[in-house]
């Protein structure tokens, strides 16, 4: 048995082909008691594209990822993921939707008691009918993809911060999800390690066709992901500067106090920063 992506009806497959609306938020709002976290948020993530959420801490960036996963429920508004309306789904129904989603949590959120192999293969070993040998092959494959094949039998506590994030990416991609969500994937990492994480995000998007949402306040990483592309070369891969058209596929959303204060591509963000003091302060 070869590990394949979850099947979808033909019509849905066509509708959500490259450039189709794979994640849609329509006027989504959320409050905790009197504190407004998100106010009338609307955006669309297109298949095979990247959406990058920027904003100060507490602006509501991570909350958007948790709403997509169904870990939180919106007070109002409509959310579509993979062609299904998820904002009114029960926890049991959400389990099906999550089969096609991968999430890289802040700090990795790896299971301490499990080895790297068990962490990466968790979904395949515990939540699928994939034979053990086949799952194991896939685990080795994705660990090779993130360059950590030799750490397969280590415990998460024996890894560095950057290695833990890469294992978290491997875990998120092991079951071949169509959508990957990254919550501050490079926060707290040195610039060199951050670039290796950024490269993984670019590789997954360009080589595996994964649609991604990246939440970050690390501008350098955000622009790097938007303005670079990966390609296969002689059985390996290469990261190059992307063309203008390719760069424009990555869209930025700036959140401020729970609302969208900017939406556009990298060049538009730079242009807007010259007249918007908040964005200017953020970019400087």
């Amino acid at each position, binding site marked *: 048995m070869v590990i394949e992506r979850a099947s979808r009806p033909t019509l849905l497959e066509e509708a959500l082909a490259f450039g189709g609306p794979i994640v849609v938020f329509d006027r989504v709002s959320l409050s905790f008691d009197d504190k407004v976290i998100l106010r009338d948020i609307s955006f669309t993530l297109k298949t095979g594209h990247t959406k990058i959420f920027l904003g100060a801490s507490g602006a509501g960036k991570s909350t958007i990822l*948790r709403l997509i*996963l169904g*870990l939180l429920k919106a007070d109002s508004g409509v959310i579509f993921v993979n062609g299904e309306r998820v904002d009114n789904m029960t*926890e049991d129904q959400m*389990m099906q939707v*999550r*089969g096609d*989603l*991968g*999430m890289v*949590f*802040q*700090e990795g*959120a*790896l*299971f*301490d008691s499990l080895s790297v192999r068990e962490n990466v293969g*968790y*979904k395949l070993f*515990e*939540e699928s009918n994939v034979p053990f040998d086949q799952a194991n092959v896939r685990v080795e494959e994705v660990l090779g993809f993130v360059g950590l094949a030799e750490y397969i039998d280590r415990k998460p506590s024996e890894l560095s911060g950057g290695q833990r994030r890469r294992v978290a990416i491997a*875990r998120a991609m092991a079951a071949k999800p169509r959508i990957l969500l990254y919550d501050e994937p490079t926060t707290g990492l040195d610039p060199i390690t951050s670039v290796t994480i950024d490269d993984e995000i670019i590789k997954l998007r360009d080589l595996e066709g994964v649609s991604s949402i990246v939440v970050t306040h690390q501008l350098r990483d955000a622009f790097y992901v938007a303005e670079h592309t990966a390609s296969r070369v002689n059985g390996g891969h290469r990261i190059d500067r992307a063309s203008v058209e390719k760069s424009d596929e990555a869209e930025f959303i700036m959140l401020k106090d729970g609302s969208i204060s900017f939406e556009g591509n990298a060049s538009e963000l730079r242009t807007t920063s010259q007249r918007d003091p908040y964005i200017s302060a953020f970019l400087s």
Partner: protein
Amino acid sequence: MAFLVDWVKAGLLEVQEFVRMVSQTSRALFTKPYYFRDIVEQFDRIGVGSMTVVLLTGMFTGMVLALQSGLTLDQFGARSMVGRLVSASMVKELGPVLTALMVAGRVGSGIAAELGSMMVTDQIAALRALGTDPIRKLVLPRVLAGLIMVPFLTCISVAVGLLGAWLITITQLKVASSVYWNSVVMGLYIQDVWMGIIKPFFLGFVIVTIGCHVGLRTRGGTQGVGRSTTNAVVAGSVAVLVVNFLVTKLLIVLMY
């Protein structure tokens, strides 16, 4: 006044969340999927792992009970009745309650700390994101282990307690072994044995469900984990004593 209202609201919220967790666990008991490896692991950790502390507690409780009973019974020239006193006390009360208190200290705190750490490091959220229901994966195995292993541990504790008391009775009190064991049997009614067996099911359930509930409600980083661990032991121990009273009262009405 506002403080009182908030306090009552917070209390009611805790009760609501506890009841919700218990009802979700009940549903998970009768529907797939099951995580058999986790169930076996928890039986080992909660049951076998608590064996040493339960053996020591049972043994020394039985021994000290025989010593103290011997002193009191001597005043009435009834030293030979020591087995009767020890068996009634150990089987009906001390065995179940002391075992439960020991398990509350060891297991309740461990569950709260483990689940609390998983909460504050997003591991519970990661489980859900990977398509696993934390109630089925984490809570149900612990509840099953608590339900089954606490009565089992109680039986061992009582048996070891009676052995410890026998040791003291024949060596210190100089009462014949056959007199002691005869007295042990004479002191027990079948209702006492039932009470000693039924109560640990309730106590085991209360300890692990409180540990799981407190762990899964942990907020506030490592400080929150410490707070949860303390709360699990305090709430678990108090709940053991309260539930023990209520179940004892109920069983007396039903059986005696």
